[in-house]
């Protein structure tokens, strides 16, 4: 286990300790104990820039399930490092912000921070592991922690709805991805990502290629909220605002983008990839920005904006894949899209992170996030206003902020994609820049809405729950840091180009580089009067005009019928699934144990008879049997007589006593066959269960004479069948001796290896200790189950009111 492993797992380890810290240091906000970890990790990961900047990577392996090719291998390259820095850097800021946002007296801080740490560790695992199965495990852990965090305020109905929705959609994608991973391993024979990348030509020519690609993209698209799977992200905004800033804008939703970037060397050189990734990206970009304009909740605007921006990064990665097709650096003609993707990834994290924090401040200080109630906050919260201006202007693509630079590069990328002469781009390619431009106009409009409807205009104090005032300094630090970065990266973009951007691009497009080469990334502020600049001007002018006349054309949002909306489909689908499942379940779950026994035993008879016949396994051999003594015959008769008498017993007490008689007689059999352990166990079990029966007796209804169980032919057939099958198997098992019995091993080794003389017990605690461990665990679960069913049962006719 290397230090790198420890770094990745450290959030998970801290998560174990946090509840104890929370209990013992009640007076100090638990967040303070958390804060050092992401900060230290951020510094730790910063040290890797030296290595990745010169084209190197760091790889550490910890053997896990080596026999299946699954090792806990971590690899730090440019791409992984970029994400690791985002996770730890934004993580530290979010934790700091949350300390002031969450009230320690009202919220369950220990669970909140445990979930947050769970997520942090999982996310680091996703972006740094080099093994696909390990990546998948961490990937699902991020979905899981996101589910827990969205549902953090689980007393709210909307939170639970949002949590379930995100879980269902992302886990569906995750499972699809698992399918993709398995197919990929069938093609390449390895789970290692680095080895898979080296075999990319082999992957490309395999018949499973397209299927694998689609499954991987399903995973990426659901996670990164791409159209039509984006519907979970707006509902995920029910989470506390620090969580929205961290998971649902800066890090987790970018896991899909990470996956697409990571898999680019494997899949990207194909028309399917370019069209699917770019197409889904551009549609998401447009749909997200279009839908954002009609929102009235500040967080909903940001949610749709995030959807739209994720689409933009996705489409850039798709467009950049064209560079792979031509196989040369080619003056960075197509590569500009990849640069833009990586650059915008960072920019988006900075401006959207700060905007989410600003929204949290507004919510915290005024008690609402509804833009219809807000207005004129500029005078009350000057610092927050400034932060909002920086964030939104960057989002809208206005100079001199970093969003302007990446938006320009985005236009360049889309224009160049349209000019491409392969993958049928010459016919439909022109659509890409057009949609991209339209979406940017809407982006401009909602950005303006966000800042001007909240901070300018008339102040309505009567609509607000609290008297607005500036936020405490602790809440402002994190957004101020992020906003400063927005300006810093805007004015000095080349701070990033050699340290972060170019190493990340090397990881996305390794095949384009000769040995020792690096991409030469240079982002310049002024390109001269290009078409891109013109497009930006058009966005700003048309955006201002449309924003002014927003009420005049807002009617188009009503044209789109609600019934066709994806959310409606999702809700209806979920309801239908529930109904159908309920019907199917109700049709066979009768609530009577006798029905279930009929199912179990019928299946038992069918499957075992089939196997016996199919394998031709029935055998009857009496050559190696001991003589039957009179004692055994007597015991046999007792068992037979008592079991048959049970059928005709008139009272329950008689049945229980007869059943006990059968049990004790079996114990006698064990005595005769010299199995004292079994005999003892059987005796005690029999005693205890008779006592249990007597206790349960009290709860059973009286048998009324008219309710005597009638004779049923089918049940008789089944019971005779079970008896016959068991007898046949017992006879065959005795008569077929295909291999040496394992008992000889135990006879030889009980004393030698385990230092015991009682073979049964040595097997129980030593040779098959694992079995015993799990058996007692199952026993424990059963006890808890019975306890829960009896102590916590609902009163009949009264449903548990979940909303209380």
């Amino acid at each position, binding site marked *: 286990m290397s230090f790198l492993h420890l770094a990745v797992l450290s959030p998970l380890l801290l998560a174990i300790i946090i509840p104890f810290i929370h209990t013992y240091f009640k007076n100090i906000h638990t967040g303070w104990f958390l804060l050092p970890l992401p900060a230290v990790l951020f510094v730790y990961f910063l040290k890797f820039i030296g290595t990745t900047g010169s084209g190197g990577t760091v790889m550490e392996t910890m053997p896990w399930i080596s026999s299946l090719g699954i090792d806990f291998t971590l690899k730090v390259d440019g791409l992984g490092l970029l994400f690791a820095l985002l996770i730890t850097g934004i993580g530290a800021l979010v934790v700091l912000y949350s300390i002031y946002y969450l009230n320690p007296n009202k919220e369950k801080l220990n669970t909140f921070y445990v979930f947050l740490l769970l997520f942090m560790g999982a996310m680091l695992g996703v972006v740094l592991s080099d093994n696909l199965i390990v990546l998948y495990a961490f990937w699902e852990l991020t979905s899981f922690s996101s589910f827990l965090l969205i549902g953090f305020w689980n007393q709210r109905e909307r939170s639970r709805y949002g949590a379930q929705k995100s879980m269902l959609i992302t886990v569906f994608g995750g499972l699809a991805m698992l399918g993709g991973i398995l197919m990929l391993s069938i093609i390449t024979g390895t789970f290692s990502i680095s080895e898979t990348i080296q075999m990319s030509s082999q992957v490309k020519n395999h018949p499973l290629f397209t299927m694998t690609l689609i499954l991987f993209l399903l995973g990426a698209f659901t996670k990164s909220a791409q159209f039509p799977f984006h519907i979970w992200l707006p509902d995920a905004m029910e989470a506390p605002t620090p969580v929205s800033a961290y998971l649902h804008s800066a890090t987790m939703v970018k896991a899909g983008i990470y996956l697409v970037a990571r898999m680019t060397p494997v899949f990207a050189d194909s028309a399917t990839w370019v069209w699917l990734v770019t197409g889904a990206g551009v549609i998401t970009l447009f749909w997200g920005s279009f839908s954002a304009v009609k929102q009235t909740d500040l967080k909903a605007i940001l949610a749709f904006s995030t959807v739209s921006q994720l689409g933009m990064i996705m489409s850039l990665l798709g467009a950049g894949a064209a560079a792979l097709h031509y196989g040369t650096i080619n003056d960075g003609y197509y590569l500009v899209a990849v640069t833009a993707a990586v650059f915008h990834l960072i920019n988006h994290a900075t401006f959207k992170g700060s905007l989410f924090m600003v929204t949290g401040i507004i919510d915290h200080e005024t008690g609402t996030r509804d833009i219809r109630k807000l207005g004129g906050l500029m005078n009350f919260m000057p610092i927050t206003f400034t932060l909002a201006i920086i964030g939104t202007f960057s989002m809208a693509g206005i100079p001199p902020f970093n969003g302007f630079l990446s938006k320009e590069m985005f236009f360049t990328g889309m224009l160049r994609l349209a000019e491409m002469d392969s993958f049928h781009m010459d016919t439909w390619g022109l659509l890409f820049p057009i949609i991209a431009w339209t979406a940017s106009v809407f982006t401009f409009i909602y950005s303006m809405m966000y800042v001007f409807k909240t901070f300018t205009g008339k102040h309505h104090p009567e609509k607000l729950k609290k008297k607005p005032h500036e936020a405490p300094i602790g809440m402002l630090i994190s957004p101020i840091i992020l906003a400063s970065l927005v300006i810093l990266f805007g004015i000095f973009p080349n701070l990033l180009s050699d340290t972060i951007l170019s190493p990340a691009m090397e990881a996305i497009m390794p095949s384009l580089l000769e040995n020792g080469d690096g991409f030469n990334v240079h982002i310049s502020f002024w390109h001269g009067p290009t078409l891109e600049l013109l497009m930006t001007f058009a966005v700003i002018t048309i955006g201002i005009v449309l924003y002014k006349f927003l009420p005049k054309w807002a009617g188009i949002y009503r044209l789109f019928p609600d019934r066709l909306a994806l959310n409606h489909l999702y809700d209806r689908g979920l309801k239908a699934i529930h109904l159908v499942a309920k019907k199917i379940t109700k049709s066979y779950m009768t609530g009577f144990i006798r029905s279930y026994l009929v199912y179990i035993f019928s299946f038992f008879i069918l499957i075992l008879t089939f196997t016996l016949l199919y394998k031709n396994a029935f055998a009857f051999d009496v050559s190696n049997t001991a003589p039957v003594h009179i004692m055994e015959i007597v015991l046999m008769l007792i068992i037979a007589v008592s079991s048959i008498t049970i059928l005709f017993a008139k009272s329950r007490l008689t049945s229980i006593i007869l059943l006990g008689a059968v049990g004790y007689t079996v114990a006698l059999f064990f005595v005769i066959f010299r199995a004292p352990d079994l005999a*003892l166990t059987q005796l*005690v079990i029999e*005693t*205890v269960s008779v006592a249990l029966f007597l206790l349960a007796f009290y709860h059973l209804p009286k048998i009324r004479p008219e309710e005597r169980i009638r004779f049923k032919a089918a049940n008789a057939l089944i019971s005779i069948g079970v008896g016959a099958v068991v007898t046949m198997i017992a006879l065959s098992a005795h008569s077929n001796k295909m291999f040496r019995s394992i008992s000889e091993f135990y006879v030889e080794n009980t004393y030698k290896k385990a230092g015991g003389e009682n073979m049964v*017990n040595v097997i129980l605690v030593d040779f098959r200790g694992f079995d*015993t*461990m799990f058996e007692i665990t199952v*026993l*424990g679960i059963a*006890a808890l189950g019975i306890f829960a069913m009896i102590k916590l049962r609902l009163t009949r006719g009264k449903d548990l009111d979940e909303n209380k």
Partner: protein
Amino acid sequence: MKTNDIILQTVTKFTLFVIILFSIHLFFAGHYHPGGGFIGGLMTSGAIVLLLLAFDIKTVKTILPVDYIKLVAIGLLFAIGTGTGALFFDLPFLTHAFTYVDLPLLGKTSLHTAVLFDTGVFLVVIGVTMTIIQTIGESE
């Protein structure tokens, strides 16, 4: 349940300790003679059940104020803890060790980590049996 069973109650008071002593004997003898944690645990539960039959649940609760669900948890901790212990010696999970030592009075005695594991089994079995019997007996 009736509580005026003088004969049963008197007999129980004596036999209870005999049964429990026997069950402890069974538990420790397990590695060499018939017995072990499972049977020992069951036998102890049997003794407590006898107590339950002779007296009633409330009385038994005051005599033995044990939270049986916690007993299950402690037992599981014993079993899993013994297994994990092997990891610290760079051995596979659940590897047992034993040695022989000379103790005063007892003479040559073997010491097994398996006994710790079996303690877990012993406690879980008592806990589970008694949880089930107590919850069913207490309801309504």
